[in-house]
């Protein structure tokens, strides 16, 4: 017998709980949903585009009625619950329907605030809250010309913009000195006002409404405290929302401004939950979608009986959904003790950026006119990242960290719909916007799955996030603590910590001890877990071949036709005629179709069939080669120039340095691939300044570089320090790599890792603290004992049959 779950309120928050439950515990409850509105669940944040005529009701529908039917959910539309009998565990609807419950979920949302001035109840005075209001505004705009919107906040301005789009003359009345005073500072508020005025919107600032003048036949004007009047045929009140707590209050649940809930989204009656705009959590009521979704996940987790997630409040950000107006704000941006404002202002271009910093951490930001870096600042704010290392270039944006971005494009707001965003999969801006609105997508992962944008190399991820933010406004939910994958709610860092603390040494232990939702993980978590296990416990954990991506399992790179490529290691790119002869012989003997010089100073044999691999490896092994790990999240190459041995400019023997580095580090498994280089003089012909670890010879020794990248996102290295001897170079290299191995997340290159943790942190551990450095290097060398067993030699002599078909028939 299933338990009965009743949801009161068919809105976005409550329905998100139901959707989550369908995924994590689809058979636990018999579900009944009551909704006062006569529709399925629609995307309320798309009301403004609906009013502006940019979308239709069908466009913004999230779950149509068939959705409920297909899942066996009873849906009572257009029926309002008027009473909860907590003793009898029943709810009563306005049409007499009675429903029993074991668990009750309140998602009653909010009411628009109505200012109780004389005339507030006249026909022609509307609020802006649901589809019914939008319909009424459409209707009014056909018959009338003059509209007054009371409230110059987010909702009021979006309503005003929508009415203007419907051809009305609109005046916005605002009590405060500047617009959106809760989201903007005075400067940005004034920029916004100028820009809206240029579009024809009119304003009355610091005006307090005293009366709405009119009669049953309609409105004449709005009168203000100072005695002045504004003619109007239509008045929209959009001064705010208040939680709809009436039902809860009647049921005797504890309410303050909203229905008070715990961190598990339970009210004072533990069998009754509440989510969304009706709740008050730790003293705060929220009106944006992002926090509601976080609440919904926690609530669903508790309803499913897991109970290991907690809601601890949200930091929210704001964007205005008015086409062509670009503003973004987040966090606290009012002047306060100890807070410093870093400001950029260009009145001619209409650009204003303010980032508020306290103790080297961002606490708030207001951006106007150029909001491309809003999501980046918001991420830094939420992660509490120290900005000390790039404070001087912070306002110029993420692009100035050395990331050359994506075809030079960093602003998507002004791009046309046919601009290609994802250059790997050929996805245009319009496709992404359409998918977001039509499919009701809310997260980057949703967009990846549905459009394939940013699902390949990932270089357009920032652009896709901007499109999400621009399309959804303040409701865009940037990743908070991101779960590793759908198999768990734990983040990479949490899982890693658990592996370390709990001394977990196998995938099975991870799945069992950490409550994995799947029997054997998925393609995303298994390789990550395998890496964390062997990196944390190199002596105890067993490397699980089935948790390896094909390339690492086969020790060769899979190609588009299913054949493989084989790249033997050529130490520092220095070879001999006899080595070259051996490679040539292998290429001829196995009829290798293509032989290519790689970018990393080696030779690639392409088109080798799976069953040929052990033979190819055996012959290369006999000639003295080991695997080049060109296929792995591992040390790839150490690129060198000829250094002081030959070059007339060379100041150190960088070739020897490079070869020694490669001999020390080959075979190590790392969170992502690692490339190194050693140059013989500051001309830097080995291009060490775009490597994960680069060495540049200087007259007095060596300059060490870290965190460079030459691929998807070009990033020049940061200088770590200078040292004098090759032995020191090796010690610093080992320590740096070990820190990266121990602390970066799986599939995170050194460049984003350093941007996340800060160069200062890496310097503290590797440069400033000699003891820590030696300990890190020591752990690196210890793990190398396991890692430096050549897989090619092993598989050329063992298990060769695994490379053959199981059977040949027909």
């Amino acid at each position: 017998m299933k338990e009965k779950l009743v949801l009161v309120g068919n809105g976005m928050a409550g329905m998100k709980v139901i959707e989550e439950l369908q995924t994590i515990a689809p058979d636990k409850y018999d579900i009944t949903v009551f909704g006062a509105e006569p529709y399925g669940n629609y995307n309320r944040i798309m009301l403004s585009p609906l009013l502006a005529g940019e979308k239709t009701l069908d466009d913004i529908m999230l779950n149509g009625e068939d959705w409920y039917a297909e899942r066996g959910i009873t849906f009572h539309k257009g029926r309002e619950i008027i009473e909860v009998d907590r003793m009898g565990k029943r709810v009563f609807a306005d049409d007499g329907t009675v429903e029993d419950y074991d668990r009750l979920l309140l998602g009653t949302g909010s009411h628009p605030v109505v200012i109780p001035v004389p005339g507030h109840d006249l026909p022609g005075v509307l609020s802006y809250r649901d589809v019914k209001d939008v319909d009424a505004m459409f209707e009014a705009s056909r018959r009338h010309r003059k509209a007054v919107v009371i409230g110059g906040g987010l909702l009021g301005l979006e309503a005003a913009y929508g009415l203007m789009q419907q051809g009305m003359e609109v005046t916005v009345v605002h009590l405060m000195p500047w617009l959106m005073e809760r989201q903007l500072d005075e400067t940005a508020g004034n920029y916004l006002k100028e820009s809206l005025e240029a579009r024809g919107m009119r304003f009355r600032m610091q005006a307090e409404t005293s009366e709405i003048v009119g009669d049953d036949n309609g409105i004449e004007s709005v009168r203000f405290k100072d005695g002045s009047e504004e003619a109007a045929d239509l008045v929209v009140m959009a001064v705010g929302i208040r939680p709809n707590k009436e039902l809860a209050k009647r049921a005797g649940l504890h309410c303050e401004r909203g229905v008070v809930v715990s961190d598990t989204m339970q009210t004072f009656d533990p069998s009754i939950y509440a989510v969304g705009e009706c709740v008050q959590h730790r003293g705060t009521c929220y009106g944006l979608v992002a926090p509601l979704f976080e609440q919904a996940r926690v609530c669903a987790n508790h309803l499913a009986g897991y109970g290991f997630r907690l809601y601890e409040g949200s930091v929210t950000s704001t964007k205005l959904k008015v086409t062509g107006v670009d503003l973004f704000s987040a966090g606290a941006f009012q002047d306060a003790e100890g807070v410093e404002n870093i400001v950029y202002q260009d009145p001619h271009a209409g650009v204003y950026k303010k980032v508020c910093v306290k103790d080297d951490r961002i606490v708030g930001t207001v951006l106007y006119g150029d909001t491309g870096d809003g999501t980046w600042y918001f991420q830094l704010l939420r992660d509490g990242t120290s900005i000390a290392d790039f404070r001087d270039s912070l306002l110029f944006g993420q692009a100035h960290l050395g990331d050359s971005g994506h075809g030079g494009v960093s602003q998507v707001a002004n791009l046309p719909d046919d601009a290609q965003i994802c250059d790997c999969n050929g996805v245009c801006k319009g496709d992404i916007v359409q998918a977001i609105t039509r499919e009701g997508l809310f997260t980057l992962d949703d967009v990846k799955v549905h459009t394939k944008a940013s699902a390949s190399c990932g270089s357009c991820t920032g652009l896709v996030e901007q499109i999400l933010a621009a399309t959804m406004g303040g409701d865009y939910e940037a990743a908070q603590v991101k779960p590793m994958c759908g198999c768990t709610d734990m983040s990479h860092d949490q899982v890693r910590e658990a592996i370390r603390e709990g001394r977990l040494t196998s995938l099975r232990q991870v799945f069992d001890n950490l409550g994995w939702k799947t029997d054997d993980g998925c393609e995303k978590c298994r390789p990550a877990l395998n890496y964390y296990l062997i990196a944390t416990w190199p002596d105890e954990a067993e490397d699980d071949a089935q948790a390896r991506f094909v390339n690492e399992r086969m020790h060769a790179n899979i190609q588009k036709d299913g054949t493989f490529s084989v790249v033997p290691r050529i130490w520092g790119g220095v070879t001999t005629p006899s080595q070259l002869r051996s490679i040539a012989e292998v290429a001829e003997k196995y009829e290798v179709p293509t032989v290519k010089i790689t970018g990393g100073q080696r030779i690639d044999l392409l088109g080798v069939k799976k069953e040929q691999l052990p033979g190819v490896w055996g012959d290369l092994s006999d000639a003295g080669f080991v695997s080049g790990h060109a296929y792995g999240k591992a040390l790839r190459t150490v690129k060198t120039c000829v250094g002081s041995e030959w070059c007339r400019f060379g100041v150190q023997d960088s070739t020897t340095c490079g070869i020694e580095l490669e001999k020390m580090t080959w075979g190590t498994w790392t969170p992502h691939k690692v490339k190194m280089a050693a140059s013989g003089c500051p001309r830097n012909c080995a291009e060490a300044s775009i490597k994960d670890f680069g060495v540049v010879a200087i007259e007095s020794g060596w300059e060490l570089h870290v965190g460079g990248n030459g691929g998807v996102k070009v990033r020049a290295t940061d200088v770590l320090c200078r040292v004098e001897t090759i032995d020191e170079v090796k010690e610093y290299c080992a320590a740096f790599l070990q820190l990266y191995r121990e602390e970066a997340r799986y599939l995170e290159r050194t460049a984003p890792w350093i941007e996340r943790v800060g160069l200062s942190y890496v310097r503290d551990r590797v440069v400033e603290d000699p003891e820590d450095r030696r300990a890190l290097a020591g752990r690196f060398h210890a793990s190398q004992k396991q890692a430096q067993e050549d897989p090619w030699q092993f598989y050329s002599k063992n298990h060769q049959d695994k490379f053959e078909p199981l059977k040949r028939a027909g």
Partner: protein
Amino acid sequence: MQAEQTSRTDWLAVGRLDDIPRLGARVVETAHGPVAVFRNGADEVFALLDRCPHQGGPLSEGMVHGRLVTCPLHQWNIHLDRGEARAPDHGCVPRFQVKQADGELFLNPEPVG
């Protein structure tokens, strides 16, 4: 199911369950091309043509999880029991019957349907 039973062909002995790594696959060459025989975590076996419906990638080299295999080329997920791509991707790969008896595996070398 009825149709599957009536398309009678000789079952082919292809090897033992233990020849296939758990959560892995091995290939059987047939007249219809390479067929990937998968073994999942619950020791269920499935057989699909070894070509991803997307761009022909060798599914036998993919990662097996639950009743899915992830193609190694572009990470499409294919339902092992149906041969269909997991939504929102679209596509289908020919499926073969495979059965176990005393640890021996038998493949019907004619595709289902």
